[in-house]
């Protein structure tokens, strides 16, 4: 990761990533999200936008609302999208209930549809300090590591899976360091976030995660599947046989057991790989979406309905429509949706078919992963300090 010396845009004094206000002049500093495909690594600090109101053109007051129509001025951090290639896109949105967007999104893709895509989503733990800054730093750092390396292994699929998992672990380590870099010394609630990264290389999809952000495979036809298993209390309940809907509605459903941050118990991602036979969608999302639609079958119906409702729309429009849908359900959390369109697969190569017995044998991650013992002491509740909303 390139280190960029950050300065206050008002007085040019030195500032650090994560500062909300300039120490010297007190100017408000905002984390500017990039417009369009981003290649630069670090969050760019700019002063908070003071442009005219998007609704009526009126002046926006210091309090963040229009002086004429009262519309909330949308900051670049509150809502942004990325579309590194027409077949890969994502939208990251504040939602309705939360005061700021602590989700983050970072994507990369090669232009050829179905060639190579990297999708990273991080969800800031909202009880932690400045996790909006931390999550964006984490997502971008991980994306850059994943985009900067194209592991091919020893030419076999198993080798490629192993090499990709290795890069995912590197990416998560770098993301964890990026979160720690935003952590003020002695912070009582140090910033923390989840991580999910999906690397699609032709028909091989490798996913790594820490926390409860998810990846789904939604083929146009055939059985959709949830590829990740949340590091959460709810997931532990599911593993113990509690029905998913019940477990995810429970009081501790959003208590996550693993996260990135200085106080993380460990940050090694759990990983899985799958051969995706298109056409279909790789969907990576935060709990702002899956809170309203969790079962793979429901997610597939939602995606298919959304596709049906917007014929000819690309991933960007579809991701945006899915975010809108979650907002219509109440928007109780920040919402991030990233989509990659897997085109109709070419006939599987010989060696790919062989994957079924090895890496793809781990397709059902429950069988491949150690059973987690509940670790109550290490739980982090996601939710605002008043505790009336869960992440």
């Amino acid at each position, binding site marked *: 990761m390139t280190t960029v010396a950050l300065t206050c845009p008002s007085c040019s004094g030195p500032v650090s990533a994560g500062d909300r206000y300039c120490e010297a002049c007190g100017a408000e500093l905002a984390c500017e999200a990039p417009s369009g495909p981003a290649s630069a690594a670090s969050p760019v600090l700019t002063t908070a936008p003071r442009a005219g109101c998007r609704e*009526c053109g009126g002046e926006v*007051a210091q*309090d963040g*609302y*229009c*002086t*004429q*129509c*009262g*519309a*909330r001025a949308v900051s670049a951090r509150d809502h942004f999208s990325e579309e590194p290639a027409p077949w890969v896109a994502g939208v990251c949105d504040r939602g*309705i*209930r939360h005061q700021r967007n602590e989700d983050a999104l970072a994507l990369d893709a090669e232009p050829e549809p179905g060639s190579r895509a990297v999708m990273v989503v991080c969800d800031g733990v909202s009880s932690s300090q400045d996790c909006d800054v931390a999550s964006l730093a984490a997502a971008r750092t991980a994306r850059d590591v994943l985009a900067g390396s194209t592991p091919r292994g020893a030419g076999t699929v198993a080798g490629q899976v192993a090499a990709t998992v290795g890069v995912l672990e590197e990416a998560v380590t770098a993301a964890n360091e990026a979160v720690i870099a935003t952590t003020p010394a002695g912070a009582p609630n140090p910033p923390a976030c989840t991580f999910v990264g999906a690397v699609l290389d032709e028909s091989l999809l490798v996913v790594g995660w820490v926390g409860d952000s998810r990846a789904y495979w939604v083929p146009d036809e055939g059985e959709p599947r949830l590829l990740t298993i949340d590091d959460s209390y709810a997931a532990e309940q599911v593993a113990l046989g509690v029905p998913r809907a019940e477990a995810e509605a429970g009081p501790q459903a959003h208590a996550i057991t693993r996260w990135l941050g200085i106080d993380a118990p460990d940050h090694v991602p759990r990983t899985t790989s799958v051969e995706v036979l298109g056409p279909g969608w790789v969907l990576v999302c935060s709990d702002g979406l899956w809170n309203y639609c969790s079962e793979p079958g429901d997610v597939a119906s939602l995606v298919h309905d959304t596709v049906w409702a917007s014929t000819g729309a690309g991933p960007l429009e579809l991701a945006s429509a899915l975010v*809108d849908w979650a*907002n*219509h*359900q*109440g*928007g*109780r959390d920040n919402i991030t949706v990233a989509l990659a369109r897997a085109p109709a697969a070419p006939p599987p190569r010989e060696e790919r078919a062989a994957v079924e017995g090895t890496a793809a044998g781990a397709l059902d991650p429950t069988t491949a992963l150690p059973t987690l013992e509940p670790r109550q002491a290490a739980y982090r509740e996601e939710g605002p300090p008043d505790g009336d909303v869960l992440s």
Partner: protein
Amino acid sequence: MATFSAEVYQNEFLPDGGTDVHAIVTITCSGAGEAGRSGAGDAAEVVIVDTSGSMGREKIRAAQLAAAAALDQVLDGVWFAVIAGSHQARLAFPEAAQPRLVRMDSYTRSQAQAAVAGLRADGGTAMGTWLTLATRVFASVPGLAQKHAILLTDGINQHESPEDLSAAIESARGQFQCDCRGVGSDWQVAEVRRIATTLLGTVDLIARPEEMSADFERIMRQSMGRGVAEAALRVWAPQGAQVLFVRQVSPTVEDLTTRRQEVNPLTGAYPTGSWGDESRDYHVAVRLSAKGVGQEQLASRVQLAVGDEVVAQGLVKALWSNDDTLTTRIDPAVAHYTGQAELAEAIQDGLAAKASGDADVATAKLGRAVQLAAATGNDEATARLRKIVEIDDAGTGTVRLRRGVNKLDEMALDTASTKTTRVKK
């Protein structure tokens, strides 16, 4: 240096198609300092004592002591005067041909005490003339920042027309603040409340003359503790929105809606008078055009302005949602003060109906008041209501009017009707 803060209590979630946003905004002032000592300008106090014949020996003696107690609380350097009121108004201190004020010091204090001790009960009652003289007395010193009066009366305004009183009240509006007290049971609460409400003051009953001194002392001490001479509540609402009402709901209920002075087309200012170290709660209701589910809009900026400077701001928001668990919740503060405002209205309407001999309406209104007092936990109101009605069932508001009610109990219920209890936060 006075500092202000604003806190907003509301449920910002509106259902699909919902338009009305309600919020309670608590404005708190601290470090107010003392009257006339903030550097913003001088303060002035006028004590207006009823010296009509009905005051008699006992009440005039009590009024003398009360006026003296009030003067004792006036800080050195504050301008002051004493008005003796009957069917006409007379400047009792300072002795002068023209209306004027003098500064308080040890000499003027003893002179004023002597003048007050010489007050005699004689003549009728024309409160409009008292207010008119007070207005002229305050105007005799230009540039005063803070002007406050205490008005004591014991009777009905018999010696001038209601129109004359109204005209005098209107002329005094914005010229000074006035806390009004009625002693005994021969004065009319509604009449005196009109003076107090217009002049941003309080109204209260002093049942027994011997209670007068302590009350006057307290009023004057409180006034001297109001270092912020004048402030206004400003309410901004977005273009196309309608401010349904602006109401002070604590410490007392006062509808401010009609007192709006335009700051700009979207912002109205509502005078609040002076501030000491205290909190006041305001209920603001705004009607918006409904927006789509998922959208957010600022419904109101509620600010406190001292002069042209905004010193505190609370944001009232609207978020449209189709989640019933969010939209159906009524904020406890809004619910509490809505009940308290309705309680005040029910008591006043009930007593008015009772006075005009309409027992059915009086029973219904006071029954509703009993129900609201119970529901909002206003035990003091319940205790006062109990002296006027027999309560059969507080939950349903089933009551019977008592016979032979003490007039003072009825007046105590009336004057206290606007006093609210704070919501338990």
